[in-house]
């Protein structure tokens, strides 16, 4: 099995600057991160304060976006949801990246049996799509952000490892590594001081791309009711919560949350692909 590398896709105009799209993406990400940090404090109303008599009421006074299907302030829920959504995705990306880099460096360094064993395990893991793994995890551990996040992280590890292992192998084959090895430097030190830093640009790029994937998949799982649980504000949950309203002609709750997800994911993915293209270019 193999995953087509997406670098064909990203081969567009490559100039040194970020361009309009790049700056827009950066701005979107900055706003989202800011919201995740200060959103729960800045929000104008209590995101969990429900008043059914305001259910699906549109913009009203200081309630800029109006109310959701339970009569909660929509803007406050979106702002509070930013933190849940972004921390969840960050957690997944971090776990996948740390585990993936570790496996990549170790297998690239030792090769042989270690490499073959890891490859076999990862091959089986490839057979489990992230969503399926998350559903099974929910059945085992009960629904929740932790089980969903862990499952996704595990599902992403083979993808991260595959990309990073290639880069690590190339680095491993460099003559300077052999030279240092001959001088008696320990494997541990070489991996930590030379191998890892030299593939760090690619690691960061992969992390960014995985963050985008994680946001989409976590939202999907929350949408299925197996991730973040309902009264808590989260963009994925909001799409699912807003569905009954949407079918009655009040689409704002679902659509606003969907727009938030799409905007942030597009921005993150765009930046990630740019980082990846740059990392690959500089390695040439």
């Amino acid at each position: 099995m193999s995953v087509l590398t997406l670098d064909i896709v990203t081969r567009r105009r490559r100039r040194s600057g970020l361009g309009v799209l790049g700056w827009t993406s950066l701005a979107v990400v900055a706003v989202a991160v800011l919201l995740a940090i200060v959103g729960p404090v800045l929000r104008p109303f209590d995101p969990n304060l429900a008043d059914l008599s305001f259910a699906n009421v549109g913009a009203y006074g200081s309630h800029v976006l109006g109310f959701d299907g339970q009569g909660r302030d929509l803007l406050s829920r979106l702002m509070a949801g930013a933190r849940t959504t972004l921390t969840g995705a960050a957690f997944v990306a971090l776990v996948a990246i740390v585990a993936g880099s570790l496996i990549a460096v170790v297998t690239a360094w030792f090769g042989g049996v270690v490499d073959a064993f890891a490859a076999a395990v990862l091959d089986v893991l490839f057979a489990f799509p992230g969503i399926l793994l998350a559903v099974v995890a929910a059945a085992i551990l009960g629904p929740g952000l932790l089980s969903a996040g862990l499952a996704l992280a595990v599902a992403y590890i083979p993808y991260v490892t595959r990309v990073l292992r290639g880069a690590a192998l190339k680095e491993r084959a460099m003559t300077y590594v052999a030279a240092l090895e001959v001088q008696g430097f320990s494997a541990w030190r070489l991996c930590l001081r030379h191998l890892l830093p030299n593939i760090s640009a690619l690691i960061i790029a992969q992390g960014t791309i995985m963050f985008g994937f994680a946001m989409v998949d976590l939202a999907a799982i929350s949408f299925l009711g197996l991730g973040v649980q309902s009264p808590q504000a989260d963009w994925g949950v909001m799409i699912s919560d807003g569905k009954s309203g949407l079918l009655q002609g009040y689409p704002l709750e679902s659509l606003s949350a969907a727009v938030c997800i799409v905007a942030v994911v597009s921005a993150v993915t765009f930046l990630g692909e740019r980082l990846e293209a740059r990392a690959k270019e500089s390695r040439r």
Partner: protein
Amino acid sequence: MTRFLARRTAMLVATMLVASFAIYGALYVSPGSPLSALTGNRPLPPEAKAQLEARYHLNEPFLVRYWHWLVSALHGDLGESIPLHENVSTLIGQRVGVTAGLVLLTSVIIVIAGVGLGILGALGKGLVDNGVLLASTVSAALPSFAAAVVLQFVVAVKLGWLPALGTGHGFADSLRHLLLPALALAATSVALVTRVTRAAVREETGREHVQTAVSRGLPWPSVVRRHVLRNAAIPITTVVGITIASLIALSAVVETAFGLNGLGAYLVQAAQNKDVAVVQGISLVLVLAFVLTNMLVDIAYAVLDPRLTLGGRAA
């Protein structure tokens, strides 16, 4: 070719063996007795508990139970759902049609729209190409659940052209019910396939052997068909296959969004109800479908590219 197929099949069997063990084992160690879901956590009299445990083979050692499960699974029997008192295979059989139909319809959309737009963008110039790029950029950013709510609201609620929910009866009605879900499921994949197709066709068009064909005075449509598309078919088939394989699990999201009575939605429901036998059974079926599709991609790749020494796919 025979050796390649044999090796590939052996790999498939090995993967499925490990995967089945993982699926069974993971759910086996899950906290909480399977009986508690049935009894609603009420304490049972010891003799009733023993009776139930004997009925569901709950007191036998793990490996024995796994072996029983695996052997019956190979005979098409995936055990019994404790809360529903029904055979899992029967439950799956009732729902597999919807999921298969959904994935099939989505695949058709992906191939026609994705490959078609990609070729159009690669061979067309200026406006056509930019239109294709824009369309693929927009749809690439639409995850299935977001596409689902947008389509439901616009096409079903506002325009009333297609139903928003449900499975439908009969072929034509089922197709009508499956159309929006398939479109939602296809959104991201169409974009990916479009981009890869466009890049592959572009790349092939610039190849030297295409120049040779032109230099021999062959008509451009023949050159495109016999050289550009034939060669671009190799990466396109790969990405289409991998994309379709990834849809199998994603169908759960769309089925839930559109209230379709399919395997994925049922898997989610079973996970919420801790219906272990059903989760195991459906997981096994979905993993098998995923692995089989990937194997077909590998075979297609080997058939399409004669340069391949049939040992494996070039990364």
